[in-house]
């Protein structure tokens, strides 16, 4: 795969995009939580927020946003926190988190069918 590494040359960028914060509330987002924009970007918005709102016009997983923005997952979670707090996005959480490690048998059956169809 050809991709440039994530900002190894400029660690300051990570600091800048998050306003110096290093932690998000990790519980607000799973790595595969699906993010959905609830508004369009507005002038003056931080460019990373603009990109997230554009990507998430369709549901988009946190890791996909991370890959598209070329920012580490935990940095993306901090950016998402801002957007969530201001009502600009909504989050569709994975159901696996709610079932304490025991997947719904129906879901497993659906996954088997989908895999068989590959």
């Amino acid at each position, binding site marked *: 795969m050809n991709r440039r590494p994530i900002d190894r040359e400029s660690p300051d960028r990570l600091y800048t995009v998050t306003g110096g914060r290093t932690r998000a509330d990790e519980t607000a987002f*799973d790595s595969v939580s699906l993010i959905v924009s609830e508004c369009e970007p507005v002038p003056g918005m931080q460019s990373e927020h603009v990109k997230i709102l554009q990507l998430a016009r369709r549901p988009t997983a946190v890791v996909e946003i991370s*890959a598209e923005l070329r920012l580490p*997952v*935990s940095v993306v979670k901090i950016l998402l926190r801002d957007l969530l707090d201001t009502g600009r996005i909504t989050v569709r959480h*994975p159901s696996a988190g709610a079932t304490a490690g025991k997947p719904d048998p129906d879901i497993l059956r659906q996954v088997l069918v989908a895999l068989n169809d*590959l």
Partner: protein
Amino acid sequence: MRTPLRDSAADAMKIVVVGGFGVGKTTMVGSVSEIRPLSTEEVMTEASVGIDDASRVRTKTTTTVAFDFGRITVSDSTVLYLFGAPGQERFWFVWDQLFAGSLGAVVLVDTRRLEDSFYSIDRLEHHDMPFVVAVNRFAGGPSLDAVREALDLSPGIPLVDCDARERQSCKHVLITLVEHLTRLYV
């Protein structure tokens, strides 16, 4: 080119492929994914360092792990993400940040470097994460029985051969995992 999810997508699941460098993780993810695999990174936060090893809190080093992923549509509302992740020690510091709540894992092994997978198998057991072991057959090598013995795998853990370049073969590995999960939970 990005392929967005459907508007109705509401629930995402994950399966993780772990293994040493060059064992075929990226190849396997690419073989079954409906999108071109994407890659990204996670950095270990100081908080998570503190949980695993209090002595490291004082050092300001951040650990970065790279991983890649693809996805498979399960239904209008459900999507499965397949992650390829390195099995080395530092990777496990970010396991909870990234892979808590996974359905299960595939440990991909190369028989020429079986010892690369000892640590991953230990950690998956420690995390109570169900897994299967898949031998990516580069060329010949020991029988599955010999591999099972060398890895000291308990009889209940499925062990299969695969060719990470072949979609049907990777599909078989994933089906083996989901059938294993079904036996565990249903």
